[in-house]
């Protein structure tokens, strides 16, 4: 009888232990650190039709209006704009394409 009671107690303890397992919290700091590391600090975007500095300043101006952007570099020679983002911030490709379209240009993203 004692053996039976002991087995029941042991099984019950194991069952509770199994139920408690899913409640173990994930490690938020690790996840956060990982996602921050994924955000690019800068991004080069190709721009079709950007041949004139006088016209391209509209691109610079529109990107600098974005709170996520800290610096914009324009290269007519290499036909791109390089966006530098504030720490922990970035701009989605759709948003970048939309800003370039509002300035009258077409974006080209690398693979």
């Amino acid at each position, binding site marked *: 009888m004692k053996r039976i009671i002991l087995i029941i107690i042991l099984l019950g303890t194991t069952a509770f232990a199994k139920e408690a397992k899913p409640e173990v919290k994930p490690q938020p700091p690790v996840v956060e650190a990982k996602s921050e590391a994924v955000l690019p600090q800068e991004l080069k975007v190709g721009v079709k*039709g*950007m*041949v004139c*500095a*006088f016209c391209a300043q509209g691109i610079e101006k529109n990107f600098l209006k974005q709170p996520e952007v800290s610096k914009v570099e324009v*290269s007519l020679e290499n036909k791109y704009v390089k966006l530098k983002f504030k720490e922990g911030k970035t701009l989605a490709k759709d948003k970048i394409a939309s800003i370039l379209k509002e*300035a*009258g240009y*077409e974006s080209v993203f690398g693979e």
Partner: protein
Amino acid sequence: MRLIPLLYLVLTSLTVSAHPVSYKDALGIMSYNSTQMNEILLTYSLNYNYAIGHTYIREKNSEFYIPRFNWLAKRWNNEDSQGNLYLSAGSGVEKYNNTTSNVRLVEVVADWESRKYYTYLEHLYMLRDNKDNPLWQQRDDNHTKLRLGFAPFLADYNDLNIWLITQWTQHNTENIEATQFMRFYMKNVLWEVGADFNGGFAFNFMIHI
């Protein structure tokens, strides 16, 4: 009150063959000046397709005040070049002596440029009700302008860009006038100085704010 003529002098000592529509919320000030005429064009771009504007022209003792609407009908964004087709229309007044009469304008502009070459064609048609100006009898008024240019060296975004441009203009059936320009621009400021073969001068200016 002195500020207005001063501003006018500053702007008219400046004028340019320009993009009448720019990027969204851009304010453009353009001024085209020669010994025959002065023009100031102010534009506000609602987006990259449409702009509202106001043209002031002074020519042959007449002054024109014409609110206008500019439309980028088509843009070709290519790998190494850009082409544009703009259409504009406006309706305003012509002031001559103490009389005021109506005037309407339609303008077509086509341009294509790369970092090395530049072409520009403009045709401006004005329909004037004024019959009184003896210097300007033509009521169906046509201005045509063709410009071809090249950059002697390729400059990048933060550099001073220099272009050599030849312009041919014809006003109605008058003789074609050729003017040689040097164009300079850096970021949002562009200016041109020119001279024709009859001793005339030209000065153009453009800024986007």
